[in-house]
């Protein structure tokens, strides 16, 4: 069962991700990205991260992507023009990507043993420490300072956004 869900949603995630890269219209990209995020949320659930899965859906797939779609519509962004040149991207882009994928994939696949007695496996229900309670406890004890700092970060982001986006007052 685990394997089935993993393969299904991994496939959806990769397909949607490829779609993000290949679609011409930004709206299509954005919707594809929502697909990737949603399937990632399911994978999070499989990994026992209930809270993060919910946040992924609500904040990421919901709020942030809505912001994207909103900006796309606001700017009335159409299909992207194919103007522009980057010889280095053309020449080195694909080989570099292939190398990156190869190295990362290799490293990741060999990171934990897949078979044998020490095999590290993900079985739904093995880990139940990802609930809202556990997260909340950790967030307000061990990670209190980063959490509070985060609020300042967000405040700065808000200010930055306002400053950048406001109409110039002449």
């Amino acid at each position, binding site marked *: 069962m685990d394997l089935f869900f993993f393969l299904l949603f991994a496939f959806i995630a990769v397909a949607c991700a490829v779609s993000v890269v290949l679609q011409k219209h930004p709206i299509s990209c954005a919707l594809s990205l929502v697909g990737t995020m949603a399937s990632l949320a399911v994978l999070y659930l499989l990994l026992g991260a209930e809270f993060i899965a919910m946040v992924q859906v609500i904040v990421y797939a919901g709020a942030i992507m809505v912001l994207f779609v909103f900006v796309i519509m606001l700017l009335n962004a159409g299909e992207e023009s194919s103007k*522009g*040149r*980057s*010889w*280095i*991207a053309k020449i*080195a*882009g694909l080989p*570099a*990507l292939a*190398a*990156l994928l190869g*190295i*990362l994939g*290799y*490293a990741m696949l*060999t*990171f*934990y043993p897949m078979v044998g007695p020490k095999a590290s496996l993900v079985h739904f229900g093995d880990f139940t420490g990802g609930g809202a309670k556990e997260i909340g406890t950790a967030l307000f004890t061990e990670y209190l300072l980063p959490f509070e700092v985060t609020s300042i970060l967000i405040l700065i982001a808000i200010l930055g956004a306002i400053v950048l986006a406001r109409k110039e007052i002449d």
Partner: protein
Amino acid sequence: MQNLWLIPALPFIGFLINGILGRKLSKAVVSAIAVLSVVLSFGLVVSVGLSSGWGEHPIHQHYFTWIRSGGVDIGWDFMVDKLTMIMLMVVTGIGSLIHIYATGYMAHEEGYYRFFAYLNLFMFFMLNLVLGANYLLLFVGWEGVGLCSYLLIGFYFVKKSATTAGNKAFIVNRIGDFGFSLAMFLIFITFGSLDFGKVLSAAPGKPVEVLTAIALLMLLGATGKSAQIPLYVWLPDAMEGPTPVSALIHAATMVTAGVYMCSRSAAIFLKAPIAMETVAIVGLATAVFAATIGLTQYDIKKVFAYSTVSQLGYMFLGVGVGAFSAGIWHLMTHAFFKALLFMGAGSVIHACGGEQDMRKMGGLKKYTPWTCGVLACASLAIAGVPGTSGFFSKDAILTAAYGHAPWMFWVGVVTAGMTAFYVWRAFWMTFWGEYRGGDAGHSHDHGHAHTHGHDDHAHAHNHSHDHDHDHGHSHSHDDHGHDHHGTPHESPWSMLAPLVVLAFLSLAGGFLFNVPKFLESMFPLHEEVPNEEMLMGVSIFAGLIGIALSYFMYVANKELPGKIRKALGGIYTLVYNKYFVDEFYDATVVRPIIEGSTEVLWHGLDQGVIDGAVNGAGTGSRSIGGVLKHLQSGNIRSYATWVVVGAVILLITVGMNGGLIR
């Protein structure tokens, strides 16, 4: 248990408050803080004195270890013994009076708070200097007062001559400090410590050559700080600073630091007879030399400045002939009457609206009777008229000098005569006769080319030297932007009160404080000299002759000075121009250094080697950049690709070194 650290700490607090917040505070608050901090400090000194029997039971306090490195172990230690006690009383006592005086004198100046902040900082360093229980702490104070001196000489920093004078003081002092530093190194090598107690008790057992070297290097330091030959040249120029500064730093306290240091190191000096002889000769030569220059100057502060140099020479003479206590006594009485002279001069300058040239004064006794009176007291004291404080201390030194070598006594007596002459010359020129600076009571159509604030005007040595008394001013009138002197006016009481106190001390200081007796336990009294009454008589006679002669020349017979000038001709010009010592130093020391550094350091080293290397690096980078600039396409995707390529290279490198295998 008295907390000695509070004594310097109070002025330092005053400095911090005034220095940081002073700009925002009112003048009343600034002066209250400045004066109070010093007066409280004085009070503390008195209480310390009362509790320790005025240094009878020395206090030594260790606060913390300052430097510990290998064999070096230097603590922040303060100590009070009788010598320190005298210095503390002089510094804080006269310091308090001058602070009070300065509140009146500086009342209309820009940078009021800055002035008092510096003055308090000076007090802090000076107290540190006298309280420090090892040479390094003394050196901290030594350098600190040098810094404050520099800052205060250059107080009118918009004036080129003031900043130049500040630089001169600083640089000349560097030479002396260099000697002092070497002395300290040598002390440390020889004694393994810098504590006064350890060094001085161990001094008798060390080889004479080393002690002589140490003493001579200290003397070099002292000649810088205390303006002795050959490093005295900065002190007359230092009169560019405000007059209270001249009184406090350049007459009463800082310049006596050299005398204090030599007395403090008496144990070393006493074992180094060659060094002692050198000290005596340097002191005596300075005394005569400066006195002759003082005879010819017209700037009232310059006269007193050379007088200070000369009197400091006396103190060194005293130290050099082994009469340390006489030197310290003279230090004290000199602090009284010289501070008074300067502050009186300040009052006169104040009265004349910033004029310092004595040829433009005269007849001031009817406008400024108080100033006239106190200056008369000071002049009597410095002339060594019997009963005044100067008489006792000067006589003590001269007697000791006679015991050492009679010729030194005779030179000293001649100098005393000259001292009496030029100080009274200044007195007569300022207070007697007719007022020569502008028409009293009339509107001032009689301007001069100088714009002036208080101390703010071009100096006598920059003038064309027309030596006639009534030199006609052909200068056009300048708007002074300052309360111009229509009629000379008496100074406010905040200025006069300290003067009166000092006048009392100048007259009675000799009776009140018998320093040699007080210091007997530290410096044994000198053996009796035969014919002491005769010697005393001679020096009194010299002083009186000086006074009489000056009266004769500047009051009774006013044509005489001009005739003497003409008769002396070249010699007069030589002396008037201070023996061209500044020019001589300029030609022999300053020029070669400037030109040498221009040729070797600037053109050769800087332009050739350093600039070459820098330019080479620049050209190299430019040509490499010319190739690499194509990388900076401004294209984000290109940049991103480079990042990916870099990441791949990094990962490969890490992987090759086994970093990806768990």
